[in-house]
């Protein structure tokens, strides 16, 4: 029900929205909860386990009951807190976890079965028959459980991430936070003030106390005017990480209709020199039988609805409390004209002076009302009572929101005088708690602690600040007498969201789950969307009581990030679609696409798979043609993705000798050599060719996949073991576009295009040339087995050269070839790639043990000599050829003929396979136990995945031109 002249809503801006298909109106500034309350809607949700009717318990993000699905277009946001969601024109929300409707929910039958659904009941049953678990029990449980629905469709809205830096981060904008920010801001510090609510002011917005809005407005105006202050509303700090890094979630577009490019949320990484925790405190419910009905809410929430939104939660209100503070709520409701039935105070010695009946030593023991509260009953000093009431406010005292202070594993301390956990200094380095978050509950105390904390924080940053004069504010003492649970025979809820009752906690204790962690995990208390914010301390107190321990001794469970739940969309912003990893394009990319080449991912790069010609309908046709084209004429391929590292210095040769197994100091200038690089543990890291460009100048190539890893490795070896050597290196991968030109007509092609002839350019030679007026590097190397060259030009010229090479090649009956053909040709030649050197392979395995030079030390040499890394038990590289022309596949395992196909008989596996149009056979490279000694033998190749079983002959891995006559031609 809306009350006139109250609240911070904008009554000039009416807003229309729907809930469960019915249209309602509210005002700008309303939350969905306040707007529903204003419209008299009490039943908003259903509970998790028993499907109990639920209303609105709180006025903040800790709401355990009023969770809804918000619809926008085809999308749907489950578990949205009605107490946080601001309304906007067109907002559509619907209730969740109910079927067929909120009012008539079939699964509310669970409520009747409650005796059999006690804590942990599922650990004790559903075990027989075994096969029923996946088939029957589990699907039933899964369907009944869960809350809102996630739509199985791709998200289309956007999310954002950002970094921010400050001297001082103030978390929370209540009296402590505002005062802290003001103090630091006036001292010139760089301040961020983050507030989870849409409006700054914290409880000053709800309290309507002595300080109130004028001071909030004036303070915010001053802060807004200062260039060194950043005010971040709708921004919840959700985690404290190391070295002053905080995570925060900003609701950017959730209070607005969707708009193009407007992020729904932004995930902030805030780096702060110091921080102040001014998150305030949460009022706690009291557990009594049936304390979960719609219409039962926290006293402070009622105060917020009244003062912030101009809404009252009922016609006839009752308060059940154990402290003085809660009476503010009924006093102000009465002042606003609301009828208050009674104050039920659990204490025997509290004041009875109020404008309504006050009963001491009171306890509510039961409530009535199926879809909303109608009556409460209980006892007080004068005996039993029954009261007709549609709204029961409860207050069990306050819990400081210590959560963020505990994110780095430190535990809060129990303060008996306020019956609450409070933080202490040093829990998170640089973080100080102030105000209610620190257990200082009066407004005056909050202001003072805020100012003091800011002065101290600035002192730590080496700045001077002085606390401003504090405004007049309420400084009433906080008086309460702990009351956690009213004894009763029924169910008294502790954790509303997960339906955990006092009985459940006691049962856990009875069964020996007495550690607080055991209790939590056994009952699921604290694991619901409110993360136990409404129940942790009470449940702990009940457990302490049940086990005869004190609360301090019982201890808390660990508070972990996030402080409030954070969407995966926000934390994963940017990852959607192609954004997960950078996309790398070669200079020939467009030219390849122009020719219809399908581009495939190779690491982060895109490379052409094959270049289809008219009439070719399968990749194999194109691939076969390209292979035969290279073998008979000439082919061109962009190989720019290979890593290229420029190495210079008087000690460059020595350095290469150290990182490669073989020797490079003996390599003549102008020559190229294949190199094998090991990890220090003796396994192969990478291979490639290295050219000596000058006396003190080398150019190393790496595989595409290992380029970054090799660079890191070289940096480590240099900086850790030989920083005093005169050698430096830098990646030039991106500086040069490099193209393979291979085939018997390769030289002809190059001679036609280069500015000089290369008739005398033997295999494994390097030279500087000029192509169409551009300086280029030419290497005579081959990965195809043909006479091959690689020509490199500065990247800017890459595309032009590629097009010219292709045009020229095509006049010679050649053309472009892609990754598929490249792969076939290297398999035909037995050249390895990372399909073979997959990290478990030694030089011995690939037949290169002799390349580990005996005369010098090198990285990996010593460890490669370990007994487990050599010998006939090792699987060694071999070639495989099916005895018939049957298709084979990589990943198949090898068995001796006659052996049973099972692990103990496994002889090895296939790493690479191709159809060789040259040899007209499938070919495979494989690792086979003692393989080098088994050339000519036959093995069985068994592939369960592809359902093949093929007899193969073991061969040398080099199928084609083993003498290398072609590549030396």
């Amino acid at each position, binding site marked *: 029900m809306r009350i006139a002249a109250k609240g911070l809503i904008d009554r000039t801006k009416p807003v229309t929205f729907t809930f469960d298909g019915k249209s309602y109106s509210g005002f700008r500034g309303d939350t969905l909860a306040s707007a529903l309350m204003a419209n008299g809607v009490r039943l908003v949700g259903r509970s998790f386990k028993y499907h109990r009717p639920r209303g609105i318990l709180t006025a903040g993000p800790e709401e355990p009951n009023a969770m809804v699905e918000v619809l926008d277009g085809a999308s749907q946001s489950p578990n949205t807190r009605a107490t946080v969601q601001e309304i906007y024109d067109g907002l559509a929300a619907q209730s969740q976890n109910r079927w067929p409707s909120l009012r008539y929910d079939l699964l509310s039958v669970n409520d009747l079965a409650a005796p059999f659904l006690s804590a942990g009941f599922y650990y004790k049953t559903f075990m027989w028959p075994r096969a029923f678990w996946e088939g029957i029990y589990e699907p039933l449980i899964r369907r009944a459980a869960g809350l809102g629905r996630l739509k199985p469709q791709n998200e289309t809205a956007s999310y954002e991430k950002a970094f921010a830096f400050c001297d001082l981060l103030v978390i929370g904008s209540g009296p402590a936070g505002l005062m802290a920010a003001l103090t630091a801001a006036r001292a010139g510090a760089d301040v961020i003030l983050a507030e989870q609510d849409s409006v700054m002011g914290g409880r000053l917005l709800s309290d309507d106390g002595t300080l109130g809005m004028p001071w909030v407005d004036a303070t915010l105006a001053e802060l807004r005017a200062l260039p060194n202050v950043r005010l971040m509303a709708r921004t919840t700090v959700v985690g404290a990480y190391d*070295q002053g890094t905080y995570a925060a979630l900003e609701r950017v577009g959730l209070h607005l209709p969707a708009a193009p490019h407007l992020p729904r949320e932004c995930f902030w990484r805030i780096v702060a020199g110091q921080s102040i925790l001014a998150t305030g405190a949460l009022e706690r419910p009291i557990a009594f039988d049936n304390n979960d009905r719609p219409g039962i809410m926290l006293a402070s929430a009622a105060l917020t609805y009244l003062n912030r939104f101009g809404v009252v939660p009922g016609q006839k209100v009752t308060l059940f409390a154990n402290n003085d503070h809660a009476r503010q709520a009924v006093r102000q409701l009465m002042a606003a004209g609301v009828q208050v039935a009674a104050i039920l105070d659990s204490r025997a010695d509290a004041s009875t002076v109020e404008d309504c009946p006050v009963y001491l030593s009171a306890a509510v023991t039961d409530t009535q009302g199926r879809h909303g509260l109608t009556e409460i009953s209980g006892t007080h000093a004068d005996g039993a009572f029954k009261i007709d009431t549609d709204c029961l406010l409860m207050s069990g005292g306050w819990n400081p929101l210590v959560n963020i202070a505990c994110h*780095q594993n430190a535990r809060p301390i129990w303060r008996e005088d306020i019956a609450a956990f409070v933080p202490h200094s040093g829990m998170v380095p640089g973080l100080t708690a102030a105000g209610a978050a620190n257990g200082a509950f009066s407004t005056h105390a909050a202001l003072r602690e805020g100012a003091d904390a800011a002065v101290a924080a600035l002192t730590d940053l080496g700045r001077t600040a002085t606390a401003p004069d504090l405004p007049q504010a309420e400084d009433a003492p906080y008086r309460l007498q702990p009351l956690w649970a009213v004894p009763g025979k029924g169910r008294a809820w502790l954790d509303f969201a997960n339906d955990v009752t006092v009985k459940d906690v006691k049962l856990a204790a009875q069964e020996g789950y007495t550690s607080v962690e055991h209790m939590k995990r056994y009952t699921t208390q604290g694991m619901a969307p409110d993360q136990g914010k409404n129940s942790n301390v009470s449940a702990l107190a009940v457990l302490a009581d049940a086990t005869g321990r004190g609360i301090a001794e019982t201890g808390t469970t660990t508070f972990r990030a996030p402080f409030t739940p954070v969407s995966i969309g926000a934390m994963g912003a940017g990852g959607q679609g192609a954004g997960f990893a950078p996309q790398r394009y070669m200079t020939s990319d467009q030219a390849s696409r122009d020719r219809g080449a399908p581009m495939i991912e190779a690491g982060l790069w895109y490379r052409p798979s094959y270049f289809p010609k008219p009439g070719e309908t399968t990749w194999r046709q194109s691939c076969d043609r390209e292979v035969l084209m290279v073998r008979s004429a000439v082919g061109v391929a962009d190989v720019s993705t290979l890593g290229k590292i420029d190495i210079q210095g008087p000690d460059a040769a020595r350095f290469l000798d150290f990182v490669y197994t073989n020797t490079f100091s003996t390599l003549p200038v102008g020559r190229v050599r294949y190199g094998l690089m090991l990890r220090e543990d003796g396994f192969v890291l990478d291979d490639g060719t290295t050219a000596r460009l000058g006396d003190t100048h080398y150019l190393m190539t790496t595989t595409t996949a290992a380029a970054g890893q090799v660079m890191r490795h070289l940096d480590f070896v240099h*900086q*850790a073991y030989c920083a005093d050597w005169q050698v430096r290196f830098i990646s030039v991968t991106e500086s040069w576009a490099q193209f393979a030109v291979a085939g018997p007509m390769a030289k002809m092609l190059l001679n036609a295009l280069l500015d000089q002839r290369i008739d005398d350019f033997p295999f494994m030679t390097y030279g500087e040339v000029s192509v169409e007026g551009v300086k280029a590097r030419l290497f005579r190397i081959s990965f195809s087995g043909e006479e091959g060259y690689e020509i490199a030009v500065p990247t800017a010229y890459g595309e032009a050269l590629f097009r010219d090479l292709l045009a020229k090649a095509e006049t010679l009956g050649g053309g472009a070839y892609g990754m598929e053909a490249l792969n076939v040709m290297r398999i035909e030649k037995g050249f390895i790639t990372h399909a073979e050197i997959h990290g478990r392979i030694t030089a011995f395995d690939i037949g290169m043990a002799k390349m580990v030079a005996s005369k010098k030390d090198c990285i990996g040499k010593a460890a490669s000599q370990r007994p487990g890394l050599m010998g006939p038990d090792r699987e060694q590289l071999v070639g495989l050829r099916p005895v018939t022309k049957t298709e084979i596949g990589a990943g198949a395992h090898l068995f001796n003929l006659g052996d049973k196909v099972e692990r103990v008989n496994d002889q090895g596996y296939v790493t690479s396979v191709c159809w060789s149009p040259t040899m007209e056979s499938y070919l495979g490279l494989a690792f086979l136990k003692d393989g080098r000694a088994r050339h000519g033998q036959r093995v069985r190749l068994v592939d369960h995945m592809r359902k093949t079983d093929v007899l193969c002959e073991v061969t040398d891995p080099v199928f084609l031109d083993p003498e290398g006559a072609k590549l030396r031609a």
Partner: protein
Amino acid sequence: MRLTCPLCGTRDRREFYYSGSEDYLNRPAEGAPIEAWDDMLHLRTNPAGVTKDLWYHETGCGSWLLVTRNTVTHAVLATELVAARKGGAA
């Protein structure tokens, strides 16, 4: 988490690559027994407390750093350039 690169200043953890304990710096001389390599490559004191380990400023300046840290609190106590250490020639 933030680390201080002696050259670039305090930077976010995401700029760094981690390789492991400082043991990797103690590369045995050629011909050392396999136990020495086992110590370098595999065996670790692995303290719950202060440790020294190796980080690479990978998306930064390319320096390898020797970092003194606490593995329980994540406090970073000191960072130095690996290249600036005494000796180390292979």
